[in-house]
């Protein structure tokens, strides 16, 4: 992957409504999306991720700010003048056209010669494995097949960027898993920059090169799935992606002091009162009274098959959840009501930046 920037938003603001009822769907967002990467915009509904996508596609004009494509300002270009294509949540396939005509629509509108259009359509249908369906009407296809037609149609004109607006949300779980693999394969094979919008954190973690987490119209954090998961910058990111523990703490030399008085070694540049976060699977349960371990009491256990969630109370009542592999439960002597010690895996505990 090169570091060249394909799409850039600079201080993009999109406000809806008037007077006292102004809602900032997008609140001063700046982001750079690199050429050829699979970038995911992740966030709950109403966080502004779809609005950002619509600004990039050209369906909406920003209230202020600029959108750049390969360094050129495209803020004022209408959608039909942007080399950017969209896969719509509802697919938006043309019901009066055949599968092949749908796939060829973009190329035809660009005025490409007929021979080139039909050659490219055949290639695209092969890519999404729908060659036998070329002459069908889209209404004769299943949901998964319609999804593939929508993908082929958006990829056929070889856009610089492909925008995907929650394209998998209408599919059932099994089909969704298949399409996740399919999308990743298409992105690798075509080398086109994908900007994928979803509210599903698992989808984001498994498919993306980088993720931008959004909330309340603002970009909260941008980074690789591993960065986002292991080093969340704030409480929102930490809790939106996976499960986590929050522990109130105070910064002391060499680490932070928990409200129980225990000191945890962790690097931080912040002074004063902070929040420490640690993932449940990074909490180790050890014998009570072990040197350096934090004392805890087992409140209750929840069995999940491969692992068990141990809900623990620290001495001051702070709740901590530890996830341990199930076979270990009995052996480690974890029983409800017993007193144990806990340790955090080295480097696993993080101080949130706000």
């Amino acid at each position, binding site marked *: 992957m090169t570091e060249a920037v394909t799409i850039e938003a600079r201080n993009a603001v999109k406000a809806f409504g008037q007077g006292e009822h102004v809602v900032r769907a997008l609140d001063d967002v700046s982001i750079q999306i690199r050429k050829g990467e699979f970038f995911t915009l992740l966030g709950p509904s109403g966080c502004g991720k779809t609005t950002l996508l619509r600004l990039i596609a*050209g*369906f909406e004009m920003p209230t202020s700010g600029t959108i750049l494509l390969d360094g050129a300002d495209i803020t004022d270009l*209408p*959608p*039909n003048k942007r080399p950017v294509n969209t896969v719509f949540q*509802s697919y*938006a396939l043309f019901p009066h056209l055949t599968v092949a005509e749908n796939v060829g*629509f973009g190329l035809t509108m660009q005025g490409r010669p007929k021979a080139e259009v039909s050659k490219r359509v055949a290639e695209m249908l092969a890519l999404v494995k729908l060659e036998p369906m070329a002459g069908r009407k889209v209404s004769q296809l299943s949901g998964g097949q319609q999804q593939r037609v929508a993908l082929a149609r958006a990829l056929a004109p070889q856009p610089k960027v492909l925008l995907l607006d929650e394209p998998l949300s209408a599919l059932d779980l099994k089909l969704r898993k298949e399409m996740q693999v399919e999308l990743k394969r298409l992105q690798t094979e075509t080398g086109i920059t994908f900007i994928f919008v979803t509210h599903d954190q698992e989808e984001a973690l498994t498919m993306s090169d980088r993720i931008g987490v959004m909330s309340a119209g603002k970009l909260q954090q941008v980074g690789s799935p591993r960065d986002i998961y292991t080093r969340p910058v704030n409480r929102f990111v930490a809790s939106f992606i996976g499960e986590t523990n929050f522990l109130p703490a105070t910064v002391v030399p060499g680490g932070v002091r928990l409200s129980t008085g225990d000191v945890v070694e962790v690097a931080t540049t912040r002074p004063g009162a902070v929040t420490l976060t640690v993932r449940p699977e990074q909490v180790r349960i050890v014998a009570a009274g072990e040197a350096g371990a934090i004392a805890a009491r087992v409140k209750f256990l929840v069995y999940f098959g491969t692992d068990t969630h141990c809900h623990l109370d620290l001495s001051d009542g702070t709740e901590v959840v530890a996830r341990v592999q199930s076979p270990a439960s009995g052996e480690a002597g974890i029983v409800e009501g017993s007193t144990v010690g806990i340790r955090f895996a080295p480097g696993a505990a993080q101080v949130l930046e706000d």
Partner: protein
Amino acid sequence: MAERRFEVARLPGFATVAVATFVMLYLPIATLVTFSFNAGSSIAVWEGFSLHWYADAWNNQAVKDATVRSLVIAVWAAMISTTVATLAALGTTRRAAFKGETFIYVAINQPLMVPEIVTAVALMILFGMVKVATGYQGLGYLILAHSAFCIPFAYLPIRARLEGMDLSLESAAADLYASPWQTFRFVTLPLLGPGILAGAMLAFVISLDDVIITEFVKSGGQDTLPTYMLGQMRRTMTPEVNAISTALLALTVVLLTAFFLLTRKKG
């Protein structure tokens, strides 16, 4: 059946009311059609089967002229009103909500609400002034008047079709490099087609059937089929009128059946 629902069909007298309603609706038409085949010249006494009133109507120059005039006016009125209605429907559905939207709807549908006789008198006075000023006496006045009152009939099915259309289809076309005109030409218009055709046919039938406005607006010698038939009432009525009415009925039934087939939801 385990579930006992309220069913109108079980109420006492349901069958009687239903039959009476259908008889009232269709007995007059059945009588009209029957007597169009009467061999004699009475519209009330049956004297045997014959097609000669159809032949008489066919060979009657006044009927021929009126028929051609009716069709010319209806075709023009349907084309003009459908074009205007299509633009109005696009204008009222393909934009953000705006102040005065309700007022626009009322304005477009005004001919449905104003009593037809009022419009007729108003048009007679206005066109009278235009006739004096320009000297033009042609069919233009009738075509214009018919176009105006046909607009709401064409507008309603077209607007219904547009409102049922997914807006993201037009976004998708724009996203795939279609200019606004290409989007209209290759996506909106083909999908709107059945709605436009339905609107045009409804407008055609409404125009074909009009008496009141035509009667007030027409110049001498500009009888349409309905006003010609009205004129016949002043003389002795013969089954010729029945034959013309039956032909008109047949045409209308064909068009309205086509309208129904075009506008019904695909199953």
